């Protein structure tokens, strides 16, 4: 068959220039907020295999992950300046287009027989690719195989990028999602764990960049106008026209990046609306994937540090409340003084002490992987009672739709990185009712939860990124709408920054 350059292939080629460049830039924004890559899920300080920051953290003082942002330039990352939430929005918006495009492209390759352009049908292709490599090294131009549109080395390279690298980056990207990673927990572990997957995802980015670094000069060496004309017109009969159109297209891509960056920095809420329009229709489907992790006691973070008190090593990511009320609770070891209030849209409002919670929990615990939105992970064994059980006790009234959790923490008062008021999150009822959504009062079977990890009582929301697992829990309120609370976006970071309440990805 005549392979040629069908129109859909040319469209896909151009769209991928846009998608991949946006994915790389927004991916760097996400990387920059926790610019460290690890092999181990425990992300023990000092053990990263790569760092992309010039910042060295305080050596003798507790520091939070919120301070580990690296401020990348908007010329490099999208949108730059450590705007993780907006970087995530762009990443997910672009992912939607990129994956859709790849699936359509893959189907078209199969049904049209164009897969032959990428998949070698003979072992000779590999030998020929070796010959082609030698030809390039000899500073000569290898010729296409008979009936093919490019040489064997190009065939294997393009085949690798489209049929191996792209599925790999999609797979490892999907497993960055706490909902997917924690629902398919065994696959997460089989792939090497959260941080190995994150590292592979990053190496995929490096591979795309490396491909472009080699691909673009070779396009020039083969003849810029001649080659780009094929990607515009489908032939090289009019290379000046085709090459000119392609060049204009590339300029438009650059303009698109500039406009997107400036627009994002100027009006983040508009990007948020675009994200909600494009991403939520599929990200909401992930509510069908409850977390079901089954780590062992031996998997918990801390073991590889060799310290006696392992809870010291479950990463902290916030500053404990600095109020006399909370300090007094801590001084009295919480046991007699702490009271969890459950109220709102319920039949039986109640207050529970830690002793009550312990009795109700009846020894229930879960050992789970924590997914920080920035990127760190830790494994902890949490003892507690499921929110679902607590809701059954309180009896939500008909029409109750959401559960709001309020913390002792006041962000503006307790953490100089942030402004604003009381920290709170809300969950839709479906997330609150998930089997691993837990009100925890003990970490790693060693007694109370340390202050830095949210003691005395905290929420564990295992399908979402870490900041939604509210720490220093004071009150639970069942409501019939969350959009009338404060800014109406469903949580502190949702209100004050650019994060979707749906943090399943």
């Amino acid at each position: 068959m005549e392979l040629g350059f069908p129109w859909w292939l040319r469209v896909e080629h151009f769209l991928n220039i846009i998608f991949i460049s946006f994915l790389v830039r927004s991916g760097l924004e996400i990387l920059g907020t926790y610019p460290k890559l690890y092999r181990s899920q425990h992300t023990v300080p000092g053990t990263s295999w790569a760092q992309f920051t010039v910042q060295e953290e305080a050596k003798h003082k507790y520091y939070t992950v919120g301070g580990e942002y690296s401020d990348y330039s908007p010329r490099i990352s999208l949108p730059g300046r450590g705007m993780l939430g907006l970087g995530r929005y762009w990443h997910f918006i672009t992912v939607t287009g990129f994956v859709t495009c790849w699936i359509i492209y893959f189907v078209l390759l199969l049904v049209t027989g164009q897969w032959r352009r990428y998949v070698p049908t003979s072992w000779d292709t590999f030998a020929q690719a070796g010959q082609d490599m030698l030809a390039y090294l000899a500073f000569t131009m290898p010729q296409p195989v008979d009936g093919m549109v490019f040489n064997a080395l190009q065939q294997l390279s393009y085949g690798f990028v489209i049929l191996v690298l792209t599925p790999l980056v999609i797979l490892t990207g999907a497993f960055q999602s706490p909902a997917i990673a924690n629902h398919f927990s065994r696959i997460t572990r089989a792939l090497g764990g959260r941080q190995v997957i994150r590292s592979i995802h990053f190496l995929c980015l490096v591979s795309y960049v490396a491909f472009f670094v080699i691909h673009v000069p070779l396009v020039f060496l083969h003849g810029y106008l001649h080659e780009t004309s094929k990607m515009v017109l489908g032939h090289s009969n009019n290379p000046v026209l085709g090459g000119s159109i392609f060049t204009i297209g590339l300029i438009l891509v650059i303009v698109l990046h500039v406009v997107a960056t400036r627009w994002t920095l100027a009006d983040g809420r508009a990007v948020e609306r675009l994200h909600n329009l494009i991403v939520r229709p599929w990200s909401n489907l992930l509510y069908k994937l409850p977390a079901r992790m089954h780590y062992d006691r031996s998997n918990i973070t801390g073991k590889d540090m060799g310290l006696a008190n392992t809870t010291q090593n479950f990463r902290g990511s916030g500053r404990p409340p600095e109020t006399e009320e909370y300090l007094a609770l801590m001084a009295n070891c919480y046991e007699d003084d702490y009271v969890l209030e459950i109220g709102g849209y319920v039949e039986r409002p109640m207050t529970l002490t830690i002793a009550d919670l312990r009795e109700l929990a009846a020894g229930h615990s879960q050992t789970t992987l924590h997914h920080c939105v920035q990127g760190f992970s830790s494994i902890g064994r949490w003892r507690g009672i499921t929110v679902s059980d607590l809701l059954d006790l309180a009896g939500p009234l008909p029409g109750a739709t959401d559960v709001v959790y309020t913390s002792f923490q006041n962000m503006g008062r307790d953490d100089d990185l942030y402004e604003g008021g009381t920290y709170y999150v809300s969950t839709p009822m479906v997330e609150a009712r998930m089997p691993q959504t837990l009100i925890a009062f003990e970490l790693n079977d060693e007694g109370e939860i340390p202050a830095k990890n949210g003691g005395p009582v905290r929420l564990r929301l295992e399908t979402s990124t870490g900041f939604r697992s509210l720490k220093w829990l004071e009150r639970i309120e069942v409501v019939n709408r969350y959009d009338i609370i404060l800014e109406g976006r469903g949580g502190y970071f949702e209100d004050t920054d650019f994060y979707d309440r749906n943090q399943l990805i």
Partner: protein
Amino acid sequence: MEDKNSPALRVGVDFRGTENATQPVLKHIKPGKKRAPLLRYIRINLPKTTRLLLIAVIAVIGAASAAVALSNHPPFLFATLALWGICGVAAVFVAVGLLTSARIWTWGLFIALASLLVYMGGLLGNAPYVWNGASVVSAAIWNLTLLASIAYMVLFWALRYGMIVAAPDNQNFMD
């Protein structure tokens, strides 16, 4: 140690009296600038892999030099002698690199520079290019001496710049 409750002091990390003791510190940012030069942001800590990579690049230079010396297309007069010299020194470099933990990277730079010098000599002489009558394989091997030399120099620069680190050294990340 004075403070047995300090995990940092317990493992020998003592920054007391410095700004970094209680504050994060940004490095490599010049006065008046907001950010450090781009490449300062890249620090890879794979010492053994990097050591093997540096040795492998020199091994490629040595092997390619030997292959060119064995071919009947000397790039210039007495080039065979120079190529065998590079090959011999490269062999010693590889052996020392694999069998010891010596920091031999500057020696490797000399090998790469010598190989580059021979290549430049070939440009003035009768280098085994296809257009000079050499086979594709001979030309590819000849050009490999150039590409591997450049690769080593880039790696050496990255090593000195702090982007990568080779065993027995380490980035000594603490965060």
